């Protein structure tokens, strides 16, 4: 079945450093979503990417969808302590189902 892997599993950065998490799917995706989950909280939607090669920006966050629609990345520029949490990608298979498969997540710690 469809699998979605994320790397790294954990990342500790100094405040002000950049951070990137990568998401790789075993199958071609129809679209991909990114979520952030604060410790003890629930996932909160960040963005959805649909088109091959798509790049979207939200302030310090840059999201990319690969040309083959099998991978994606989230890059945070100049991290802040408010960026702490776990970042998940969720991929929707292009095979026509309505199931989003979540990645394993990357837990980000920002040291002040």
């Amino acid at each position, binding site marked *: *079945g469809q699998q979605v892997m*994320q790397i790294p599993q954990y990342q500790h950065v100094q405040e002000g450093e950049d951070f990137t998490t990568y998401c790789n799917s075993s199958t071609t995706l*129809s*679209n991909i*979503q990114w*979520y952030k989950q604060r410790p003890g*909280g*629930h*996932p*909160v*939607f960040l963005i*959805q990417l*649909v088109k091959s090669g798509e790049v979207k920006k939200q302030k310090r966050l840059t999201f990319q969808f690969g040309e083959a629609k099998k991978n994606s990345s989230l890059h945070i520029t100049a991290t802040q302590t408010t960026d702490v949490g776990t970042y*998940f990608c*969720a991929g*929707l298979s292009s095979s026509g*189902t*309505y*199931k*989003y*498969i*979540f*990645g*394993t*997540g990357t*837990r980000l710690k920002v040291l002040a």
Partner: protein
Amino acid sequence: NAGVTQTPKFRILKIGQSMTLQCAQDMNHNYMYWYRQDPGMGLKLIYYSVGAGITDKGEVPNGYNVSRSTTEDFPLRLELAAPSQTSVYFCASSRGLAGTTYNEQFFGPGTRLTVL
């Protein structure tokens, strides 16, 4: 709007007991989902529904049942609780069709379940 609500917040069950986790949304969303999240792990899809009366299995459906008699409610039933079902359960809903820009998932606050 309350969004997605879940009850209870916490529950401890004994092995073999049964319970229903409640989920409701007031956004008139068609799609609803149940996920489980084990400690330090990602979310696994248990069941989902694309509308009232329609449900389908996700990645980890064994040991669970669902029903969707109304647009608003999507309860998850555990029949014979086992320690392997200790987890945090999240319900989510989304508005539109897959592949559109309208299927952002809104999550409830979760139910923390322990089976002893």
